């Protein structure tokens, strides 16, 4: 794939800490919130989205290079910080894309401030206690195996991470899940105070689920669709939880057709 954009790296000071951001493209702003494993740099999804939008990819507080807010105890704390980031950057009418855990944070943001967010996209997002099935608990399995379960199958996982045990990516995940354990240990990956607020969110929302998601049950997607007044759901065939890794172009097209 040819590189259309070279992302620009910069930092923003927020609540006494630093937020690291990668950014590229022009057009309506589009903020991407990463999985609980953290963002692995500028990937094909971001590149594709940057063809039509100004794409902003922060490391959420406590993840990767951004400062860990010692006081944070809840994904809602991250949501507040991410809204402060939007305000501080003067961003309005943003298309907010949340991948996995980032989608949980994005849903929390949407319940707090609909003015800054023009469109919402939740991809395999937890946040609701699944009516059926269970969210895969990353704390009780090897973290490499957790990532492995994010892919539709072993072959695809091996394609991306052929030498996981010796890779820096593995230690990045180990580092990042400390923050996840600080804000999301219990209840694991959902908030009982989120669903009652969702009917008040009128932002047009696109829900995307990988057909073979083994991490976040699709019953959660259907629950989001039931509770959000302006939501539709798209199933990506043959993708697992990590739709952004496995089907970046399909996902980019879905987001672009929904985005500002």
């Amino acid at each position, binding site marked *: 794939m040819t590189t259309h954009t070279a992302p620009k790296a910069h930092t923003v000071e927020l609540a006494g800490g630093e937020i690291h951001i990668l950014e590229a493209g022009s057009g309506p702003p589009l903020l991407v919130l990463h999985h609980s494993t953290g963002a*692995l740099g500028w*990937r094909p999804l971001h590149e594709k989205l940057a063809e039509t939008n100004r794409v902003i990819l922060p490391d959420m507080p406590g993840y*990767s*290079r951004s400062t860990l807010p010692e006081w944070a105890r809840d994904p809602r704390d991250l949501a507040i910080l991410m809204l402060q980031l939007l305000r501080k950057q003067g961003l309005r009418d943003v298309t907010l894309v949340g991948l996995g855990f980032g989608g949980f944070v994005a849903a929390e943001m949407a319940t707090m401030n609909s003015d800054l967010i023009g469109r919402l996209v939740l991809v395999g997002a937890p946040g609701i206690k699944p009516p059926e099935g269970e969210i895969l608990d990353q704390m009780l399995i090897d973290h490499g195996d957790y990532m492995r379960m994010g892919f539709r199958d072993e072959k695809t996982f091996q394609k991306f991470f052929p030498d996981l045990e010796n890779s820096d990516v593995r*230690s*990045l995940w180990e580092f990042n899940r400390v923050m996840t354990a600080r804000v999301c240990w219990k209840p694991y990956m959902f908030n009982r105070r989120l669903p009652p607020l969702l009917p008040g969110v009128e932002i047009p929302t696109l829900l995307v689920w990988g057909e073979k998601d083994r991490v976040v049950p699709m019953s959660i997607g259907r629950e989001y669709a039931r509770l959000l007044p302006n939501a539709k759901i798209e199933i990506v065939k043959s993708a697992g939880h990590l739709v952004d890794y496995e089907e970046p172009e399909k996902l980019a097209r879905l987001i672009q057709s929904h985005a500002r």
Partner: protein
Amino acid sequence: MLVGYFTERPYQDPKSGLFGATGKDIQDLSLSNIDYDAMLGADLYNRYLDEKVYCEEMGFDAIMFNEHHSTPFCMGGVMNVEAAIVAKTTSKVKIVLNGNILPIWDDPLWLAETLATIDMISRGRLVTGWVRGTGRESVSHNSQPPFNWERFQEAHDLVVAAWTRPGPFRWEGEHYDYRYVNPWMRPYQQDPHPMMMIPGVVSRNTVAWAARHKYPYVMLSTRIEPTKLSFDYYREVAREEGYEAGPEHIGYLWKVHVDETEELAYETGRKFLQGPGNIFLEGSRGVASPVLQNLPGLTDRNNLLPTGQVGFVAASRGRSTSDADYSKPRAAATRAKAVKGAPKAKAPVAKAPAQPPAAAMAASYDEQLANYTIITGTPKTVLPKIRHVLETLRPGSVFFWDGDGAMTHDDTMRSLRLFGSDVLPAVKEMGDELGLISPFDRNPMHAPPIKGGRRAKAPAKKAAAKR
């Protein structure tokens, strides 16, 4: 010298086929309690409690309990209940709890009340230790690993305050909030509170913390040489704090089995490594779950004692013995590198060879006998070996670990009887001869200040500032 007895109270089920030479290995937290037999549990609890009473009759100064959760190797999931029972069924022995797992308590004030009650019923015989727990405990009682050390320290401070500070007062900490701390009970021991002992195996933080508080530190069945170095570290911190640590600040627990003949002792001692023994111990048939030992933020894996460098200890805790840990400075560089380049799809490469399993790195039974982490024999032959350990480590408190693994009640009672008739009197004489002062002979918390301690003046200053 204080001489105590300890067993983990294993859940021995000969029908299960899960343990011992005839059974299969188990991985930590891999068993369902559907197989738990409460009739058997009733027998075992009563057996272990009876053995404790017999320990007192045989002349032990102390009986030690520990606590683990969701595991067959230790039935002490509610150690304080056992302690409360022996508080009433014994009259002289110290009741050593090593220890309550502070971070998993959401209401440590209740713990302060529980322990004060035990101290009163036993008329001041409680020795209360504190531990951080392993990953198993954090998972079983769902306590956030990243806050484990903070909660340990704050819960301890709260318990001590509840015991020593006149109530009512308000407690508003980082992890615990109380609007009314005023328990209607106070511990029997008030100089300044019940005796404490802090057990440990690998964490430097815990040693330093114990030394700063002048609490005796007890090493649990670690190899002799690194144990000595870990005690040196305690003494080093003590000197920084402005006092000289003596034998009263040091304790050691290790496996000693006494029997009627050399042969019987040797064969019975082998049972330490059979049955549902503690998975962290050398030769155990159990396997620690690496996932549980590496819960996010639970321990600082680069802040280990010399005991933690022993290959077996590292492997049994699911830790790499190589430089593969994620210390903060290293992680910063790693993180920067990891996020810089998005991984590209690559051709699969061969996997790195796996770490040798803990079992393969463990010393065999005979090796452990040779390095004295297990001592077996007749009273006559165990005494010189015990003396060697006492001379090398100079602990003011020792605990003999026996009656564990696959040992039966009869095995245990034979050993306890011989301890009483022929071993304990001689060991106590050795302790006197070697000047191994126990914490009950000289209160470790009243260690006098020394000249030239690097922080000799700092604590006084700090205390003044607080007032």
